[in-house]
């Protein structure tokens, strides 16, 4: 293990008088699955939005491969090789699955607009290459059947997979999953677990996820960070974290609450 791929250093965020995240530090190693857990309001999603640069930290910073990303606009962060999904699915609904996946690739094309308009040889080659890469993702996630369907007509479970596919189509080095199992049934959640494992093992992508389903968390995670009220409770393997008295208290309430 060398340096952490992603590093949060003394992160704090204040919304008005509320300190949503208080002095949180952690590091994520290359090619691990790192989960953030905690009861509602623990600051998981806030930390997530800090990593993907949607929010600005009040103090502290986030570093990705040694570079400070917490002051960059979100689209620049995306270009550094970080892709994310959303809890409530944010797809381009009036476009086909294929078009959704291609959008992420288009942004990495280095051709001029005049070349695009004339559809020159270099544009054609780049597009063919993108299409091939996107087809790999489609095959990886078993989306062949939906390739040309409009997103607006797809069931929720499939959309969730399409969003994952779109993130993978950007060929990220770090993938952020915001509640990958929310809204999915048991079987779909199980599939999601397999995919996350494959993403780690076959594609070598580092994953950070926020997740409520402890079954999924302990199945796929290498390390888990438990949060409560914006502060770190504990950090360790899924078993260690689940056995931690502070975590049990945060989820079930302590003796004083009874």
């Amino acid at each position: 293990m060398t340096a952490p791929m992603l590093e949060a250093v003394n992160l704090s965020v204040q919304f008005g008088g509320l300190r949503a995240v208080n002095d949180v530090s952690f590091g994520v190693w290359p090619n691990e699955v790192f989960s953030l857990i905690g009861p509602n309001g623990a600051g998981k999603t806030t930390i997530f939005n800090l990593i993907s640069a949607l929010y600005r930290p009040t103090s502290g910073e986030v570093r990705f491969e040694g570079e400070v990303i917490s002051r960059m606009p979100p689209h620049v962060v995306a270009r550094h090789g970080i892709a994310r999904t959303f809890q409530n699915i944010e797809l381009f609904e009036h476009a086909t699955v294929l078009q959704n996946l291609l959008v992420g690739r288009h942004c990495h094309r280095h051709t001029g607009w005049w070349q695009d308009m004339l559809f020159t040889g270099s544009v054609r080659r780049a597009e063919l290459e993108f299409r091939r890469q996107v087809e790999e993702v489609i095959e990886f996630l078993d989306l062949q059947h939906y390739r040309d369907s409009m997103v607006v007509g797809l069931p929720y479970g499939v959309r969730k997979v399409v969003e994952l596919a779109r993130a993978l189509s950007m060929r990220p080095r770090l993938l952020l999953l915001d509640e990958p199992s929310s809204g999915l049934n048991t079987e779909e959640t199980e599939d999601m677990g397999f995919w996350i494992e494959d993403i780690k093992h076959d594609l070598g992508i580092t994953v950070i996820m926020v997740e409520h389903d402890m079954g999924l968390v302990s199945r796929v995670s290498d390390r888990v960070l438990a949060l409560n009220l914006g502060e770190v409770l504990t950090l360790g393997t899924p078993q260690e974290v689940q056995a931690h008295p502070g975590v049990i208290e945060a989820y079930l309430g302590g003796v004083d609450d009874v």
Partner: protein
Amino acid sequence: MLQLLQLIVSGAAIGCIYALLALGFVLIYKATETVNFAQGDLMMVGGFIGLAVMTVIGLPFWLAFLVTVVAMALVGMGIERLVLRPLLGQPAFTVVMMTIGIGYLARGLVTMIPYWGTETHTLPVPFKDEVIWIGGEGGKTGGLVISVEHLVIILATVALVALLYVFFRYTKLGIAMQATSQNQLAAFYMGIPVRRVNMLIWGLSAAICGVAGLLLAPITFVHANMGFVGLKAFPAAVVGGFGSIPGALVGGLIIGIVESLAGFYLPEGFKDIAAYVVVLVMLVVKPNGLFGDNLTKKV
């Protein structure tokens, strides 16, 4: 029969102007979910810029055309950057009021230019008052008479729409604009600089207004109130189904042609209300417009 055709051609020409303005409405609406009520006034500004470039600087028409388009794109981007971006996150109502204000401001500023702003000007285009005869006997009697001004409007609109189609279909920026208009948050994480794209959409929309202004100028002259044409373009966008680009074009043509026919076959005054009658009928029969999205919620 010939008369009908004649009316349809001139209606289609005006309809193209409505269509271009409606296109401007739709572009901004799709991207930022606000309606820019200054659209017509931007067209007027475009007309005046063209006029100034041609008469004061003395450039030929086609060069002035280019200068105007570029200048209008800058005006549009400037409005977005200086006036609308600070309003980001405010309710849509605030933004709409702001665009109405921009319209008033544009009209006010133009009329404040002494001796010039309040006058009605003729744009010295090379194809002024020329006509083309189709059929008839040696170009003397009978046959279809098409004024070159109308023909230029129609051809220029077709060319512009084709160009826009290629732009949206093939270029990275065009696709980024489409993506942004469908989902801003997702667009951000696809690596699209959403704010800059929104600014460019305003620029594009204003440039289209500038083109509309220059095309309309030979027919209606250039004056501070020429922007009221925008009031007819809005119904055109509604008829097409607000938010649909082909809808805006078809809507503009329908309004233009209906207006032209109403002006000839119906009593005095019907011409001015024709556009609104069409909108009312459309809202009763098909509230989503011709190409509109089906927004009804399933329960």
